[in-house]
C-alpha cells in the first residue's frame, strides 16, 4: 500500500481527527487519497514519438448534507492543505444536522492483483514490441502509409478514510495496447484501429505474439474500409455484431439507468421502474466483478464492493446503478457504482462492464431475415442526450444487407435512435455473447472512466442510418 503521509507533516491520527470533526453533522462523506503512476509510449510515423511518465498524488475531501455536496481537492499533502479543505467544506455546509451513515458492506473478493504493470516490463522490451508492430505492418502490405502503436499503463492506489477512522484501500492496475493503421490506395485513405487492454500486466496480453492479432485486426478493418461505398440514409433494419457494438447498450440504455439522472428525473427512464422497457429476450446487467476486466473494480471509489447489478430482466426494468448519495436519496442501497476519474473529481454513479446476455438465435438467422438493412460490426464513439433519449454512434466497420445476404462494406455512418424505444425494436437476440477487447472509456460530466461492454449479435427492426445515399 502506498504511504500517503510519507514525507508530510500529517499523521494518521491528525487525518482521522480532521475527517471525523469535519463530517460529524454530515450525512456522508470521506477523504479520498490517490497515488497514481502512469506511462504512455507512442510509436508514430516510423519513430518512437513520445515516452511519458507521470506521477500524481492528491486528495479529495467530500462532505454531504442531504442533497448538497461540498468538495475540495488538492495535490499538496500537508496538515495545512487538509485543514484548508476542511474549512472550505464547512463554509459551504453552514448549518447542517445530518446523521453519518457508518455502514459500508464488505467482501473479501478481489478482481485483480496488486501489481504495477509499468515496472513489470522494461522500457526496452516495450520499445521493441512497438518497433516490431511498425515493421510487421509496413512489410505486410505496401498500401500501409501510416502506423501508430502505443502502450499505456497505470497503477492507481487509493485509500478512503471515513468518519470514525475506517479505511478502505485498493490497488488498481490498468493497461492498454493500441494499433492504428492508415492505408492509401488509388488516392483514397482509410484507417483501421484495434486495441486490447484490462487490469493485468502487459505480458498477459502480449504472450504468443498476440500483438500480431491486434495488427491483423487493425489492418483488416482499414482494408475493408478502402472498398467501402457511401452508406444508405434512412430508417432500416440493423444487425449488430457481438462484443464492442454493445456500446449501443451503454449509450442508449446504460446512461439513462444511472441513479443521478433518475433521482433528478431528467432521465427518460425515471418513472419506468418495474415496467416493460424492452422485448422479452432482453436481459442487461452491469457487472463490476469480472476478473481482470477493464471496467471491473474490487471496491468502487466510495469503498462499496462492486456487484453484478441486474438492470433489465426479460424486458422488465429492475434496478438503477447507484452511488451512496443517490441511493440514500432514493431510499435504496448503493450498487457499488460510485466512481470518479481521479481525486480531482466528485463521485458519480457510473457503469462498469455493461452486458446484454445471450439469447437463442444465430447471427445467420438474423442476416437471412433482413431484406434491406445494414450489418454493423464495429463502432467508434457514441453519445446520448439523456433527456430526450436520443443517442448516436458511429460505425467504423459496416456492410449493407440485401435480400438476406451481406453485401459491400459501407462508409462510416452515424446511427441514431431513441433510447427508451430502441430495446422494444430488438426482435432477435443471438447466442454468441462476447466481451469487448478492453478499450472503452466512458465520459460523463467531464470525467473519463474505464468501462467494458458485452453483447451477443442482435437484430434491431428499425433505426435511422445517417449515410449520404438516399
Amino acid at each position, binding site marked *: 500500500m502506498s504511504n500517503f503521509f510519507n514525507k508530510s507533516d500529517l499523521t494518521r491520527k491528525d487525518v482521522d481527527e480532521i475527517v471525523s470533526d469535519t463530517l460529524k453533522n454530515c450525512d456522508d462523506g470521506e477523504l479520498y487519497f490517490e497515488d497514481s503512476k502512469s506511462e504512455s509510449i507512442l510509436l508514430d510515423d516510423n519513430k518512437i514519438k513520445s515516452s511519458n511518465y507521470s*506521477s500524481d498524488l492528491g486528495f479529495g475531501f467530500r462532505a454531504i448534507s442531504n442533497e448538497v455536496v461540498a468538495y475540495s481537492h488538492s495535490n499538496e499533502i500537508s496538515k495545512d492543505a487538509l485543514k484548508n479543505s476542511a474549512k472550505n467544506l464547512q463554509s459551504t455546509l453552514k448549518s447542517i444536522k445530518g446523521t453519518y451513515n457508518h455502514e459500508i458492506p464488505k467482501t473479501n473478493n478481489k478482481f485483480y492483483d496488486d501489481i504495477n504493470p509499468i515496472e513489470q516490463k522494461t522500457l526496452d522490451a516495450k520499445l521493441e514490441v512497438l518497433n516490431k508492430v511498425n515493421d510487421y505492418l509496413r512489410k505486410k502490405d505496401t498500401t500501409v502509409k501510416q502506423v501508430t502503436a502505443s502502450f499505456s499503463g497505470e497503477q492507481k492506489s487509493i485509500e478512503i478514510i471515513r468518519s470514525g477512522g475506517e479505511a478502505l484501500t485498493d490497488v488498481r492496475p490498468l493497461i492498454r495496447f493500441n494499433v492504428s493503421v492508415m492505408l492509401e490506395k488509388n488516392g483514397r485513405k482509410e484507417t483501421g484501429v484495434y486495441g486490447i487492454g484490462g487490469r493485468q500486466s502487459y505480458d498477459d496480453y502480449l504472450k504468443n505474439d498476440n500483438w500480431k492479432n491486434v495488427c491483423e485486426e487493425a489492418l483488416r478493418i482499414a482494408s475493408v474500409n478502402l472498398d467501402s461505398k457511401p452508406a444508405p440514409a434512412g430508417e432500416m433494419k440493423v444487425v449488430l455484431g457481438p462484443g464492442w457494438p454493445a456500446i449501443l447498450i451503454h449509450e442508449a440504455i446504460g446512461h439513462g439507468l444511472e441513479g443521478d439522472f433518475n433521482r433528478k428525473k431528467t432521465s427518460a427512464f425515471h418513472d419506468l421502474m418495474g415496467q416493460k422497457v424492452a422485448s422479452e429476450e432482453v436481459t442487461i446487467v452491469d457487472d463490476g466483478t469480472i476478473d481482470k476486466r477493464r471496467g471491473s473494480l474490487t471496491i468502487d471509489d466510495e469503498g462499496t464492493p462492486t456487484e453484478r447489478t441486474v438492470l433489465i430482466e426479460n424486458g422488465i426494468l429492475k434496478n438503477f446503478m447507484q452511488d451512496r448519495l443517490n441511493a440514500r436519496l432514493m431510499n435504496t442501497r448503493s450498487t457499488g457504482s460510485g466512481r470518479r476519474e481521479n481525486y480531482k473529481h466528485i463521485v458519480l454513479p457510473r457503469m462498469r462492464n455493461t452486458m446484454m446476455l445471450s439469447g437463442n438465435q444465430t447471427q445467420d438467422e438474423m442476416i437471412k431475415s433482413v431484406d434491406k438493412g445494414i450489418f454493423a460490426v464495429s463502432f467508434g464513439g457514441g453519445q446520448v442526450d439523456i433527456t430526450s433519449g436520443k443517442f448516436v454512434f458511429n460505425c467504423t466497420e459496416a456492410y449493407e444487407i440485401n435480400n438476406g445476404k451481406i453485401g459491400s462494406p459501407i462508409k*462510416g455512418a452515424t446511427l441514431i435512435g431513441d433510447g427508451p424505444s430502441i430495446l422494444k425494436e430488438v426482435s432477435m437476440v443471438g447466442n454468441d455473447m462476447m466481451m469487448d477487447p478492453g478499450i472503452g472509456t466512458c465520459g460523463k460530466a467531464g470525467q473519463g472512466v474505464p468501462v467494458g461492454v458485452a453483447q451477443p449479435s442482435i437484430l434491431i427492426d428499425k433505426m435511422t442510418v445517417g449515410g*449520404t445515399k438516399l
Partner: protein
Amino acid sequence: MIKDQEYLKSKASYCLDLAKKLGATDVSVTVGNSISETVSFRNKVLDESNRSDSLAISIDTYLGKKKSSISSSNLLDENLKILIEKCFETTKITPEDEFNSLPDKELVAKNVKDLNLYDQSHLENDKKIDYLKELEETASIDKKIINTESGFTENKSNFILANSDGFCNGYKSSSFTASCVAVAKDENSMERDYEFTSRCHLNDIIDPKNLGNIAAQQTIKKLSPKKIGSDKISIIFDKRIAKGWLSSFASAISASAIARGTSFLKDKIDQQIFSESINILDKPDLIKGMGSQCFDSEGVRSESLKLVERGILKDYLVDTYNGKKLNLKSNGRSGGSTNLHFENGKISFGELLKKNSRSLYITETIGHGTNLVTGDYSVGATGFLVENGEIKHPVNEITIAGNFNDMFKNIILANDLEFKYSVNSPTMMVESMTVAGK
C-alpha cells in the same frame, strides 16, 4: 492564493539545473498552478461546491536528438529529483529522432505584451450563489421548465515556461464561467438545452437574468419535435455548431496531421478549399480574448494569421517538431489555434433563413462523426424546420452527412459574428446536404 511567479520560477530553475547537471543537453520545463472554485445549483437550491487547487509540472529532457517527458503534481524537490533522474534514464534509451529540438532561438517571444487576461476580482461563494439564484429564478418562470441546473466557476491560473536556451516567461490568466442547463416538458416530449458565458473578466459575463432566460427559451422551443423524412436539403448551422466546424478545420491543418499524412487538407496550401467569399483568421493578441496568448506552449511568439484568404488555404498551424518535418518555421501554434474565426458574411440571419423555400436550422449535434482523414462528416442532429424564412417546428432524431471537401465549398455566412469564445463563427448555411430521417 495562487502561487506567484517567483515560486514557479524557482521550481523551474531547480529542474533545469538538475537535468543539466545529470547531462541533459536541452531541457524544457512548464510549471503551473490553477485554483478554481465552482458552485452548482439545481432547481433553485445549492447542489455542490467544489474547490480545486492544482499544481503541475512537466519536464522534457533531451540528450542530443533523444527526448522523453515526465509530469507530476508533486512539487517537492525530493520527488522532482527522483522523476528527473527517471526521465533522463529513459531519454538515454529512447531512440533518436532528428526532428526533436527546442524551438529556434530567433522565433521565441522576446517581449510579452499585456493582453489583459487576468482579472484579480474574487467573487465569494455567497456572491456566486446570489448570481445562480437570480439565474434559476428567471430560468424557471415558465411552467414548462421542470428542471434547471446551473453553475458558476471562477478560475485563476499562473504558469512559467522555461528552457535551457534561457527562455523563461509566464503570466497569470483568469476566467469566470456561468452556465445553465434547462429541462422542459410537455405532453409529447422532454427536452434539454443550455446557455453559457465565459470571460477573462468578471464584468464581461452575461447577467444572470439574461442567461437564465436564453437557456429557458431555447429549451421550450425544442418541445414536441417531429422527425422528418430523408432528403437533400440546405442546412443552416447555429453559431455554436458552426464554430465546431472551425475547430475541425484547425485540427485538419495542424502540422502534426499534415506531417503524418492523416488530414484531408494535406497538400492543399494555395488551393481553393472554401468558396471565394470565405476568410478565416487566427488572432493571438486580442485584448481579453478567450484564446489569446503571448507565446505558444513552446515559447514561440505567435502572430495573426490569415489561414484562409478568399477561399484559399494559406497556412498550417505549425509547431517546432512538425515544422522541422515539413521544412516550415513554427508560427507559434504548438497547442493549436488561438482566437479563430470566420470573417463576417454579407447577409443577415433573416436573409439566410429566407434563402431557400425549405431548410433545416440545426442547433445541436451529437456524436463524434468527423473523420479528418477522409473529411467525412455524419452526426446526429436536432433543430428546426424552416419554410419561407419562418421556423415551422422543432425536428429531432435525424442525422446530417456530407464531406468537408464539398461542404466547405458551399458555405454561405451571415453577418452576425460575435466574439464570445476562443473560436467564433457567424451563422452558416451549407447548400444541399443529406438528411437521414424517417
